[in-house]
């Protein structure tokens, strides 16, 4: 290449080839880079619900990052929303009641008190209340639940979250909640208590892939399953 013209023609040709190759490569790279971000919430939550082995207690998921209220509601502080608490039903509770047909959530701005009724589950014509794990003001409810209540069953700790509360007495509330090993032992006792008042083992109830459609309570006692549920949810009616 002894002339500038040849040199420019050659170098520009190579630069174009590199640029075109890059553009062609960029498309798959884009999907590679961006696709991992979008479905992340589900996958992470799914990972939690399916549960790493050490989180499973007797077939129920008990993730470490969550605080449990004895009425089978859970509360969790997410790192991307440090001043809010996400609230939902735990794995044992949703398996107990089976597929939830509908849910009545408190209004935004409403006050919830730890241990007081905060929302009602609607299933099989019955309306069963549940207690709030924390005190505070409701700032958000899960929009998907009106159309897809089954999300609660499918992913109780992830996309099946119920509300977001701005806690007023966070540290005090935590004292009243169980987590880590305490929670695991509590779930273990709950499982054995459930087995006591059922004539046959809860085995079959748990062996099928996901929570059975009816839920453990109805499988155990078709008529007064609601009494069993209310007993576990520590609610009176």
């Amino acid at each position, binding site marked *: 290449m002894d002339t500038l013209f040849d*040199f420019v*023609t050659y170098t520009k040709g190579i630069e174009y080839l590199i640029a075109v190759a890059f553009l062609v490569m960029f498309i798959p790279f884009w999907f590679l880079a961006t696709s991992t971000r979008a479905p992340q919430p589900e996958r992470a939550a799914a990972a939690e619900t399916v549960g790493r082995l050490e989180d499973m207690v007797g077939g129920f998921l008990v993730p470490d990052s969550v605080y449990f209220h004895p009425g089978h509601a859970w509360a969790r502080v997410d790192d991307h929303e440090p001043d809010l608490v996400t609230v939902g039903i735990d794995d044992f509770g949703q398996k107990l009641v089976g597929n939830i047909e509908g849910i009545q959530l408190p209004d935004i701005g409403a006050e919830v008190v730890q241990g007081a009724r905060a929302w009602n589950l609607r299933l099989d014509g019955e309306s069963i209340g549940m207690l709030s794990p924390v005190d505070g003001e409701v700032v958000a409810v899960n929009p998907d639940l009106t159309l897809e209540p089954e999300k609660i069953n499918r992913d109780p700790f992830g996309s099946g979250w119920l509300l977001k509360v701005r806690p007023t007495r966070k540290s005090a509330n935590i004292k009243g909640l169980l987590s880590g090993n305490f929670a695991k032992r509590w779930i273990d006792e709950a499982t054995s208590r459930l087995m006591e008042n059922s004539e046959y083992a809860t085995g079959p109830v748990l062996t099928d892939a996901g929570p059975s459609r009816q839920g453990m309570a109805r499988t155990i006692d078709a008529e007064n399953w609601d009494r069993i549920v209310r007993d576990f949810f520590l609610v009176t009616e």
Partner: protein
Amino acid sequence: MKINRRGLIKSVFAAGGSAALARPGKAAAGVEHFTGNPDRYGCLTDLTRCVGCRSCEAACNEANGLPKPEVPFDDDSVFEHERRTSEKAYTVVNRYDNVRTDAKPVFRKIQCNHCNEPSCASACLVNAYTKTPEGAVLWNKDLCLGCRMCMLACPFYIPTFEYDKPVPKIQKCNMCHDRTSQGKMPACVEACPMEAIAFGKRSELIKLARERIEKEPDRYIDHIYGEHEVGGTSWMYISGVPFERVGFDEHLGVVPFPQYTRGFLSAVPLVLVIWPALLGGFYLFSERREELDDREKSGKPGERA
């Protein structure tokens, strides 16, 4: 161990500086210098010898089979107005008043200067111009689209276009490339009685021109037009009269024309490579923000079961 900013900068320069001093020769090698084919041919027109007989026009017309002109070649009336080359005449001779002694007018022959770094070649999008190793710049009729970008790019206004033809060609002097490749001289050089046009290796012609200027300093302007203009041309000129008084453009500079677009062309791949990620980033940013807005909005009194 706190490195304050000044300490850091000093150390960086020290490192940088030493590298540059250590081997200055190395850095200088980075400068691009293109010589082209050293044995390429060229022509040297000596304006002091040209008598305006226009034998060169006649010879060029015949050698290239161009149509006969309206005004015959020995009719001096054509000198009344300044002519330019056309699609029917690859070379023309113009007459100028002699500013030094009004005894003898000065004649100037125009034709393609066969630049070392042709601007027409750099402008052509289908690479229809090639600077041959022998020196001539040739146009390729099998590639040309007729976009006429070469006509804008040529600082000497040389390439001409056949406006009156449905299948037009670009017409210009090709330094009789077929004749020279058979060892003959270009037709105009051979026809010139006064040997006003010398033909030979460009390097030889530069020496010849310098010899003539040194031998007769009063006869010539001490400047070889084309030695450096637009990066050097194969067709050069020596004259007894200042060049701009004989229709030459003295403001073309010495930068080879392909250099003018090189800056832009090197920015092109940068855009090609940076924009995807940049615009992709904007898209992700606006998607994310929209997602947050949705989540915020939906948090409001959502319709309950």
